[in-house]
């Protein structure tokens, strides 16, 4: 049984020609953890997620996934470990939903699968992802015609079709109404609790973050300011300074988890 522990060791990064940097980011993410990266806009949440996805290469330090450094994996191997769900996607042409979800399997296709028809196992992985996200009925629709909530479920289906132990989600509930947001979060919750997937997400809603996540890293100006179990981090007085805002920390009446409200 391989372990898909993610280990980040003193990672630094700066965008070329920009003052925005990440400095001295370290942390361990064990398998089956749901981690949220929070912090004000421009704190570096998305950049850290991009580094973990291999979209950017750290200027300093290293990121390990499982036994090896992230950059030692080939593109295909990496796509079998980590799946990245973008915040939004606007394809230039009217792709069918099924084609979009099939892209999740692309990294696992061999040479002959790419030329001919993919084998049954690939098609089953796509079907399972469609069923698991209740998007099977949308399969023949155009991705560009979907509503915001539907599109987000299809993107989740795409990353599930990748069948990776680790999911990286960039603001998964941004622009969703409460009903669709709750639905998506509970789907992710089942993936973490029932399939022991590791979920790492950039997130900005402090009211709901404590209800679902196990761990929280709070970033500010490219550094980690607070790091730990969600319930502990959300009670820290430093959060006020970090967001420049007063918070009331409540306990959710039925879920018995911390909820932050701005005062």
């Amino acid at each position, binding site marked *: 049984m391989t372990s898909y522990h993610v280990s980040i060791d003193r990672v630094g990064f700066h965008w070329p020609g920009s003052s925005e940097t990440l400095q001295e980011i370290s942390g361990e993410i064990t398998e089956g953890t749901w981690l949220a990266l929070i912090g004000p806009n421009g704190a570096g949440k998305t950049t850290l997620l991009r580094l973990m996805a291999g979209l950017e290469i750290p200027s300093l330090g290293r990121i390990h996934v499982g036994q090896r450094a992230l950059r030692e994996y080939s593109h*295909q191997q990496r*796509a079998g470990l980590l799946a990245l769900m973008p915040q939004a996607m*606007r*394809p230039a042409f*009217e*792709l069918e939903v099924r*084609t979009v979800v099939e*892209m999740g399997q*692309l990294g696992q296709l061999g040479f002959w699968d790419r030329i001919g028809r993919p084998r049954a196992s690939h098609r089953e992985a796509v079907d399972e992802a469609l*069923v698991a996200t209740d998007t099977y009925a949308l399969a023949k629709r155009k991705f560009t015609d979907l509503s915001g909530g539907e599109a987000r479920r299809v993107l989740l289906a795409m990353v599930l079709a990748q069948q990776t132990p680790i999911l990286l989600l960039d603001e998964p509930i941004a622009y969703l109404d409460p009903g669709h947001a709750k639905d998506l979060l509970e789907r992710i919750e089942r993936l973490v609790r029932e399939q022991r997937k590791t979920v790492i997400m950039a997130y900005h809603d402090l009211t709901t973050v404590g209800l679902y996540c196990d761990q929280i890293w709070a970033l500010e100006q490219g550094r980690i300011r607070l790091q730990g179990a969600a319930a502990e981090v959300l009670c820290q007085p430093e959060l006020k300074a970090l967001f420049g805002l007063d918070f009331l920390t409540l306990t959710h009446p039925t879920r018995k988890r911390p909820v932050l409200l701005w005062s």
Partner: protein
Amino acid sequence: MTGLDAKHRQVGIYLRTRTTLVFLLLVALLLAAFAIGLVHGSTKMALSTVWHAMLHPAGGISSVIVWQIRFPRLVAAALVGAGLAVSGAVMQALLQNPLADPYVVGASSGAGLGAVVAETFVPGMALVAPAAFLGALAAVFLAWMLARARSRSPMLTLLLAGYALSVLFSAISTYLMLQNQRSLTTIFAWELGGIHGITWSAVGVAACIMAASALMLIPYLKTMNALLLGDDVAHGVGVAVRRSQFVLLLSASLFTAAAVYLSGLIGFVGLVIPHLVRRLSGPEHERVIPFSFLVGATFMVLADTVAERLPPLGTVPIGLITAFIGGPYFLYVLARPGGRRFF
């Protein structure tokens, strides 16, 4: 799950059957276009005469007309149409821009400059076509080198670099043409595009280049679908984005350059045909690329036949025919409300 499976299997079989039927229909249309092209020409021949000449390559004057004049010319037209349509489809996917065409990153002006340089400095050596081939490839390669240095949005940089190079190369071409007015007519005729004096050896060279380029392209059809989702998503699902973009650009440029080698600059085919095909089959490249190949070939064979035999005007450059047919038709398709239909 089993109910879904059965339903899905039916849908899958239906789709595959439909795709196969469309494919066979397009092949039949291409063959029909060839038959029309072989029958018509400066002297009309009966289909039976053509058939007889096809079966007996050494059978007198009609065999010579069919085998040495009409057939190579039609095969050249088919390759030009197919090459430009495939190249256009690849460029549109690569740049994620439905307005991209085979010439968009500098291939046309590079080819033009190559042709002008050959005609100016080594006139009368029949080097216009090879020089245009090299010019087209060189221009795209130069644009790629300029874009590669930029890590963010290199495809946008490629588009802009290609445009800037086009302006520069066109200016140099114009200057050379004005300096050396003898070559003006030759170059002007070449730039209008046309299929003249085609030999089997020229067709063979272009066919080999296109075959190599197609072999390069085929393993990347699904990758092209992924690139439509954006570079970040493509990377996320395991695509080596830069390498794939380079292979696709190289393949598209070879298709374009081989077409330019045969016919000069023929516009509109590479822009219009992929759009028509997407309306027919959806934007998935497993279908767009082979269908573009067939539809492009058929369209160009018919356009060449019309160009050759437009009765009141005599022969007209094929580039004008494609523009006259393609332009209004494209406008009609754009104005008509959606749907996957040709008419």
